[in-house]
């Protein structure tokens, strides 16, 4: 009982304390903490974080108007849209810095969400056995890659995003054929994360894998994983036609944010030159703010053409993509 009283008291104190911003984050603590620390240094506003990869949206929904969440940080685009669709967001001010920092392609027209970084869905290939490739996602179903492809689960948001974009471009039927073809080409059942696939290429289990670009940078920075990264080429797919599929990480201000001002300041900060550069330096992602150059390492991977299809159009196909994954039993 005493614990409860103390907890209750703490909860009250917690609310009374001024100048904090509460962050619900789908992104890992160690990725965002340095940026949040910088924010505290600049503004004096402290941040409190809950990190979970799953279920945060449901939690906010349940907490209703009492929810302490001010800002939600997501690691992919569909969650931004989920939050908006479920009425869990509120608009940021029309004349806020976010509007001027971020191009309209990367923020909601109703000002309900904003993208903060871009990530490319690349195709990794074995340096030794395949070399640099001029490849399209569509080619992955080609018979010449039989038994040579590794990937993580088809249901992971990054793969779902890619499949949804394929549906948006090529239609459901063609994508189903493609997905069946890719499944038939797999060297092993989908498992592990993007890095695990590069590790598999390094060990000779497969030649080709799907993976986001920043993992390449992260592997290069890790003593043990550098060997894996050194054994592969990073390819940007579909350079001759529509460009490579990109996903975004982003943020929203929660509908019932108790510290809306602080939330707005945080979002403005995250879209500023400084934070955008930090994202690129620390996490090897592509900034969305024009004029902020990616880190040297990221630049060294070369320029690429990105798919410019509206993110909304891709997100609209997400459920269809998921059904396809189940239908062709991609993960089984």
């Amino acid at each position, binding site marked *: 009982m005493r614990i409860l009283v103390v907890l209750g008291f703490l909860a009250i104190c917690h609310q009374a304390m001024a100048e904090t911003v509460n962050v619900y984050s789908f992104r890992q603590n160690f990725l965002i903490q340095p940026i949040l620390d910088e924010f505290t240094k600049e503004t004096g506003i402290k941040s409190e974080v809950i990190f979970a990869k*799953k*279920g945060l949206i449901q*939690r906010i929904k349940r*907490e209703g108007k009492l929810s302490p969440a001010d800002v939600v940080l997501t690691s992919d685009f569909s969650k931004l849209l989920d939050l908006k669709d479920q009425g869990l967001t509120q608009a940021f001010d029309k004349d806020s810095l976010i509007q001027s920092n971020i191009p309209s392609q990367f923020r909601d027209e109703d000002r309900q969400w904003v993208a903060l970084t871009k990530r490319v869905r690349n195709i990794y290939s074995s340096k030794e056995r395949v070399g640099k490739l001029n490849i399209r996602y569509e080619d992955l179903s080609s018979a010449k890659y039989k038994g040579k492809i590794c990937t993580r689960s088809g249901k992971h948001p990054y793969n779902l995003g890619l499949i949804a974009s394929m549906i948006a471009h090529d239609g459901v039927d063609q994508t189903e054929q493609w997905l069946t073809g890719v499944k038939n080409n797999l060297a092993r059942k989908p498992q592990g994360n993007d890095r695990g696939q590069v590790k*598999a290429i390094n060990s000779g289990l497969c030649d080709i894998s799907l993976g986001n670009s920043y993992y390449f940078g992260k592997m290069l920075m890790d003593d043990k994983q550098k060997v894996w990264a050194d054994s592969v080429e990073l390819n940007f797919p579909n350079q001759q036609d529509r460009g490579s599929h990109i996903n975004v990480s982003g943020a929203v201000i929660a509908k019932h944010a108790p510290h809306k001002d602080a939330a707005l300041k945080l979002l403005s900060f995250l879209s500023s030159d400084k934070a955008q550069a930090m994202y690129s330096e620390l996490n090897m992602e592509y900034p969305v703010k024009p004029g902020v150059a990616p880190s040297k390492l990221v630049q060294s991977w070369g320029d690429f053409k990105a798919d410019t299809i509206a993110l909304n159009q891709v997100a609209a196909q997400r459920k269809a993509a998921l059904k396809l994954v*189940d239908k062709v*039993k991609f993960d089984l």
Partner: protein
Amino acid sequence: MRSINVLSISSGAIALLIFAPVLALMYESFFSAAALNDDTFQDLAQSVLFDYLTNSLLVVFGTLIFACLFSIAPAWWCARYEFKGRRILQWAMVFPLAIPAYISAYVYTEALDYAGPIQTLLRDLFQWRSPSDYWFFDIRSITGASLMLALALYPYIYILMRNGFANQSDHLEHAGRLLGANERRIFFKIRLPLARPALAIGCTLVAMESLADFGTVHLFAISTLTTAIYDSWLVYGSLSTAAKISCLLLLFVVSLSWLERKQRESQKHYDLKGSHSLTKKTASKKQLLLIWMVCLSILSLGFVIPVLTLISYNLDYLTENLNGKLWLHAQHTFTLAASAGVICTALALLFNANQRFFPKKLHASQQNLASIGYAIPGTVLAIAILIPLGAMDLGLNAILESWNMDSVGLILSGSSFALLMAFVIRFAAIANGSVHSAYEHIPPNLDAAARSLNTHSWRLFKDIHLPLITPATISALLLVFIECVKELPAAILLRPFNFETLSTYVYQFASDEQLEHGALGALLIIAVSLIPIFVLSRTQKMS
């Protein structure tokens, strides 16, 4: 006959309270507007649900087989034989319980995968070039997952069986010997059947735990019903489908325990501990060799290898892993787990005493009701808990507002209270199972004798039942504590701001397949879980 009394009312009320979140979830899944307009379940049923179901059953089945293989013989040996080092060995066999299955799974995957050191070495030795050149045990398989889960869960069966064997008396064995039965026949025809209640409860716990497992099967990329629950809820965004599949899981668990009870009803056996309890034999040299070899192999697989691997990870990343906050996380974890352990054990005593004093179908079903949380995957349970707690918070704040008082915010759903509640609901079944099996062993004529001396219920409980079930009660406390320390999915979702348990801390690394960086935290989980085992081994005489 007094039919209304404080004991029954309070145990009924608590059982209902524990069941409330599940009830709320069921309501949402079948009757809410969203549920009625949702065809996700049909879609899944047409495509993959059957595969998922099959996989789930195979994992449970495999885990049970492995877990029985690992536990029954050591339990028997430790209860039956006296040999040097037995006291240490009988406790050491419980150690693997301290390691979450997903951590061992991670360690073994790293070692046995295609890119791992063992296969690489074999390829180098034999000049194999590609996977098609040779066969190797695929750890990321149903067999692999069953093995990992069994290594982490077999101590349940082991503890219960060891207590079960140790509490048996020699009467029946003497009778058997007179009729010319040998050691082997006595074990299979007398000892093992007598320990069946303990075996049944142990197996039910293991079955439920492996049914609800997410971490291991997820790491091994095996799609099971829990995967389907997560997918439908978090990817399809359909809570109602997730709840429907949860109900399917529950159906399994309920029928499992029903079947077990039905079978057991016909053969009740009571025995008195005391002058006739199992006499220990001295083990022969040959037997000793076998005992040590088997037990040490199991221990190495389930405990020594994972711990040594974690230590070696730590040596590689020690400076990065050392973190002042870890100590705080350990304290959080310890406090929460201890509170949940005490509450669960108290509830188990309450339910079982109630059932004992007022044996009714209703009271038995209360116990089942209160145990149901065990079969619900943590994430779903977390959401189920948020439904009533969130509503209570809103109500409370509305009342305060009407009195012109300051809002207290999410005092229930946003504090550690929610987490504590989740732990209690999830693990009430473990405490209940342990206490229940001990109660079953107390012969009713003891109660009758006490009653004939005009003893009232409280004294009967305090002076007769409690001393007899103390070992089981302490085991209950220990098991719940350890499970809470290891619990992950509910903790992730329900913890308040800047509040980490050791599991959630380790998970942020493990989820990224970078357990190396969370290795120190993982070792702390193991250390914290080992504390109660050590304490018990010093204070409790197991047999």
